[in-house]
């Protein structure tokens, strides 16, 4: 069976461009507004959606995504409600892939088998788990692949050629290249180095390679889109949520459009770079 992720990456490649992958945190700033943001993303130009699962202790995230998670948790978001968001989204959009991104503990506590069943039923396409390296594949990666979900692995600047095959071994859907040694929302030091790393990974796999961490503007997105199959933007989007809130931290009529306006800009950036189909 062709997965939504494979189909979407193939469509973008056929259009001669990279895919725009947008990250937002589920339940940020509240469940209803987050649902509205989710519904609006594809229309604004998002090709693939990463939906962040809030966790109290996000060890690989910078301040923007930490704060987004705290807002969501304060508003009562849970993993159960996040799956409900995906279910609602699927009623309107059967094609846009959704990947859940987060940390293992909420899934472990939910129960791996029950979670995989519920996630599939809700219409989730894949998982990115920051704290599950290949050494822990038996925990969730292998059961997820068996259940029919994609498991997207992170490759980083510290993943050398010797280790890369281990990282790629059970990866599916796409490879997420982390542009820097650091946390989300950092600063990319060199586009050239990122381009070389993407080329290095592509020499080892036929899977699409998306690049994330530190992509903030349409210009960043365009620079990354030259070599990568996908460009991931997250911190910059959740910052738009934060900046749109009122004094009490509540959503305003401008919240959804603050996010979608930036997504549209980023989509133009990604689409400005044409590649051979």
């Amino acid at each position: 069976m062709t997965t939504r992720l494979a189909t979407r990456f193939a469509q973008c490649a056929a259009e001669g461009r990279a895919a725009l992958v947008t990250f937002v945190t589920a339940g940020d700033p509240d469940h209803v507004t987050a649902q509205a943001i989710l519904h609006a993303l594809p229309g604004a130009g998002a090709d693939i959606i990463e939906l962040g699962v809030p966790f109290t202790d996000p060890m690989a995230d910078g301040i923007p995504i930490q704060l987004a998670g705290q807002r969501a948790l304060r508003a009562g978001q849970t993993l159960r409600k996040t799956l409900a968001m995906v279910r609602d989204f699927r009623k309107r959009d059967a094609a846009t892939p959704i990947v859940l991104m987060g940390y293992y503990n909420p899934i472990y506590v939910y129960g791996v088998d029950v979670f995989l069943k519920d996630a599939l039923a809700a219409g989730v396409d894949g998982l990115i788990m920051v704290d599950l390296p290949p050494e822990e594949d038996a925990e969730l990666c292998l059961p997820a692949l068996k259940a029919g979900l994609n498991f997207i692995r992170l490759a980083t600047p510290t993943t050398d050629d010797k280790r890369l095959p281990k990282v790629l071994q059970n990866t599916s859907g796409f490879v997420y290249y982390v542009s820097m040694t650091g946390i989300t929302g950092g600063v990319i030091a060199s586009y050239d180095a990122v381009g070389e790393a993407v080329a290095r990974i592509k020499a080892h796999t036929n899977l699409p390679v998306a690049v994330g961490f530190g992509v903030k503007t349409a210009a960043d997105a365009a620079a990354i889109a030259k070599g990568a199959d996908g460009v991931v933007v997250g911190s910059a989007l959740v910052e738009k949520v934060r900046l749109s809130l009122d004094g009490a931290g509540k959503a305003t009529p401008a919240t959804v459009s603050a996010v979608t306006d930036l997504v549209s800009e980023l989509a133009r950036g990604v689409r400005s770079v044409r590649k051979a189909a």
Partner: protein
Amino acid sequence: MTVNPAPNSFRNGPDEQGRFGIFGGRFVAETLMPLILDLEKAYAEAKVDPAFRTELDGYLKHYVGRPSPLYFAERMTAHVRALAEAKGGTGGAKIYFKRDELNHTGAHKVNNVTGQILLAMRMGKKRIIAETGAGQHGVATATLCARFGLQCVVYMGAVDVERQKPNVFRMKMLGAEVIPVQSGTRTLKDAMNEALRDWVTNVADTFYCIGTAAGPHPYPMMVRDFQSVIGHETRAQMQEAEGRLPDSLIASIGGGSNAIGLFHPFLDEPSVKIWGVEAAGHGVESGQHAASLTGGRPGVLHGNRTYLLMDDDGQITDAHSISAGLDYPGIGPEHAWLHQMGRIDYISATDSEALEAFQLCSKLEGIIPALEPSHALAKVVQLAPDLPRDHLMVVNLCGRGDKDIFTVAEHLGGM
């Protein structure tokens, strides 16, 4: 629930995956994985290198001041015997203190830090980062970094910076940079998150010196090994003092490094009863406590699977203890396993019990203990009266109370 058959030895863990039963492991971001594998390799080589052992022993003796005495606490013993008599009993165990509060920097933390810093230098690392709760691990790390001329950055929750000011000042005097952590609950767990964020950013030159027997493999094993000097000394010292093994051991547990250090060399001695004392805060039933084994359940945080305080959604909940050093919602994975196997009896002491024991020990023995071992002392006073007089009980006096006098004064209304 799976039934766990008793293992041949309680001292063989962890396995190659860094597991103690289902606990432990390497739940870290990919960026850190190569570093953790490097560390594992470097430690395995150092462990069997006699030159490393000799160097470490030399610093432990001449710089830290080891061995720490095993001290017969005569008046504490008389006190528990009086308590026994008052109940109509004739018992009252003979109580020994393992005096790790006499170490340079005032706690057991320095045993582990000395080992890790020597290892860091062996690996060519010039920048050391650490997390700290009460500040004892931060002070020990800052001390060793000063001694060896290494850059030192200590992450400390902003709440802890406020309640442990003397240690913050000490770290600064020693040349360390202390970074108050404002994220999350602003205590030890958040300091650890922030240290991990630093490490993932500065992978090339930085060594993360973890302060307790937790975190991703190989830390729980490595910290345990470095702290086991406590138990090995105790064994030899008790042999010399009484000609036999102790009958019981008792130690306080936050992450659990002082406890595993005392306990580990005795785990395969079935005659030795072992108690670990968690911090019950305002009482486990109040929900405001730091007793992960008593009041938590298995989950994954900070690189390992262990018992954690959390809600039904897997979100980590706030720990509470009067002692900043025990104020952590998790526990080292080896303790989680020993709990599951039933080898160690994990109990808990409340803030007020610890405060009482703090005063009792000060007045009876002329030793002001830290609030952390005061939790163990609180249980000694409850357990020892019901044990026979020839029962030899060792309590790990893992830190001194200088850092806590302001906290205690505040609770006792200025004394």
